[in-house]
């Protein structure tokens, strides 16, 4: 089914502080913008798939949103996989479209942890709270420490990832944090949970994004201006909690990337650019290793030296990712991939024919991969 389904429209809200806006309102704004971008009437939508808000999960959220949008979709609901769910829902929608279960699908996400509650990101890990084990950054720091001590990965190599992504975000007029970062500034950045510094950690943001999917054939007959073909997708889930994972430096991203690249008929060296889930810098490094861009353990040297910056070998997170554009867990990486494949990105990568996008959740518990192709 490679290329049979396309992303026909993308939409988003402003990112940052959006006080007084609930997630339903934010989702609707992003969906309205995505439908307008695709040139589709709301009533043509027959699938509505939503990742539940991280900071305030609710029962039957997919149906609550469908009601608020006046939709009675053929296919609908929410899927809890943390950040991986965006791409998993896109993949599910693509398969549903391919098999005649629906024709036009909306996939969306909204949350408001910045002006609402950020408790989800700072809470205790069960009975281990007695040992002081709290918060999402500490989980990633635990993976980072093992990687650094086992393979010699350095703080500066993590810093190079932040420097590249912040550079890209600074050029994005819609980014929440438009401030470049030098390696010297990174070294001065305070520890949050050693070995991770403040500048290794993503933003906390309110906002929403949405994408419209349909068959390539349907997009053609409807006259969609710039449909972006989906070339491949895959999933892989580590599942085990950090302490229980047999190898802290390996994750389900390996299976996810392999499945998606196989489906797309591409090898890592064929990939022109990437949008990699950057909740923390170590996540980028480990995902690039898992996808085969660098050998296992060698992600540190790979990420240094400007390789990930515009003009480098593998430009990534060209709108600023979670570190700079918005802390939203992942759908913004898909929309930037779409802008790149349309040739409409602010920091356009010239000649890029494909883009790999990663989404993941928990402490690398879940992973989902998407490969996009250039729009024809």
């Amino acid at each position: 089914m490679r290329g049979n389904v396309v992303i026909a429209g993308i939409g988003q809200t402003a990112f940052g502080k959006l006080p007084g806006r609930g997630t339903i309102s934010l989702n609707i704004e992003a969906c309205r913008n995505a439908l307008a971008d695709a040139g589709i009437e709301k009533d043509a939508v027959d699938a509505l798939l939503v990742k539940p808000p991280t900071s305030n999960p609710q029962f039957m959220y997919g149906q609550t949103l469908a009601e608020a949008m006046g939709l009675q979709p053929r296919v609908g609901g929410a899927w809890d996989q943390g950040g991986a769910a965006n791409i998993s829902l896109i993949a599910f929608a693509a398969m549903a479209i391919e098999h005649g279960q629906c024709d036009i699908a909306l996939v969306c996400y909204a949350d408001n942890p910045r002006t609402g509650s950020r408790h989800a990101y700072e809470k205790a890990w069960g009975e281990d709270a007695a040992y002081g084990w709290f918060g999402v950054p500490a989980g990633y720091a635990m993976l980072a420490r093992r990687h650094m001590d086992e393979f010699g990965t350095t703080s500066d190599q993590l810093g190079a990832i932040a420097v590249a992504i912040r550079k890209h975000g600074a050029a994005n007029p819609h980014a929440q944090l438009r401030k470049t970062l030098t390696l010297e500034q990174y070294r001065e950045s305070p520890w949050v949970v050693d070995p991770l510094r403040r500048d290794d950690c993503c933003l906390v943001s309110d906002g929403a994004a949405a994408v419209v999917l349909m068959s390539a054939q349907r997009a053609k007959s409807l006259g969609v201006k710039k449909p972006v073909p989906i070339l491949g997708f895959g999933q892989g889930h580590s599942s085990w909690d950090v302490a229980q994972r047999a190898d802290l430096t390996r994750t389900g991203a390996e299976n996810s990337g392999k499945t998606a690249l196989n489906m797309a008929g591409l090898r890592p060296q064929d990939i022109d650019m990437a949008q990699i889930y950057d909740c923390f810098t170590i996540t980028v490094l480990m995902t690039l290793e898992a996808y085969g861009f660098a050998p296992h353990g060698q992600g540190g040297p790979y990420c240094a030296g400007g390789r990930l910056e515009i003009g480098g070998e593998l430009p990534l997170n060209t709108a600023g990712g979670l570190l700079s554009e918005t802390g939203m867990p992942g759908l913004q990486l898909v929309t930037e991939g779409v802008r790149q494949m349309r040739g409409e990105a602010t920091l356009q990568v010239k000649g890029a024919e494909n883009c790999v996008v990663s989404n993941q959740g928990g402490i690398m518990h879940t992973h989902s991969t998407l490969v996009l192709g250039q729009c024809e």
Partner: protein
Amino acid sequence: MTNETLFPAPQVSEVTAPYWRALDEGRLMFQRCTSCEHAWLPPRGECPRCLAREPRWETASGNARLVSWVVYHHGYHDYFARRLPYNVAVVELAEGPRLISNVKAVHDMLCIDMRLKLAIEREAGVALARFAPA
């Protein structure tokens, strides 16, 4: 002074009660499957390898190694905010099971795979399975 009333004491369940009771008596216990001999922590009702029920309890030797550790510089909880910086570690017992713990050592001397020895300590009246360099 740390306010003991703030301590996030474990919400002990029926499944984890024997674990915490044993620690209170000075022993670190883990579970082993009576069907496939797989060993694990934290306590659970079924073996995650073969799905058999009713695992047995065994006492750990206390020998362990340090898998990874972090040092908190941000207080996510009032009880621990006054203790910054403090470490949290992933520790692997010689028998295989892994757990979240703290290592009683200067942070500069910690390194992955170093040998550790169980050093049970009381915190706000709760016995915790901490470790010290062996």
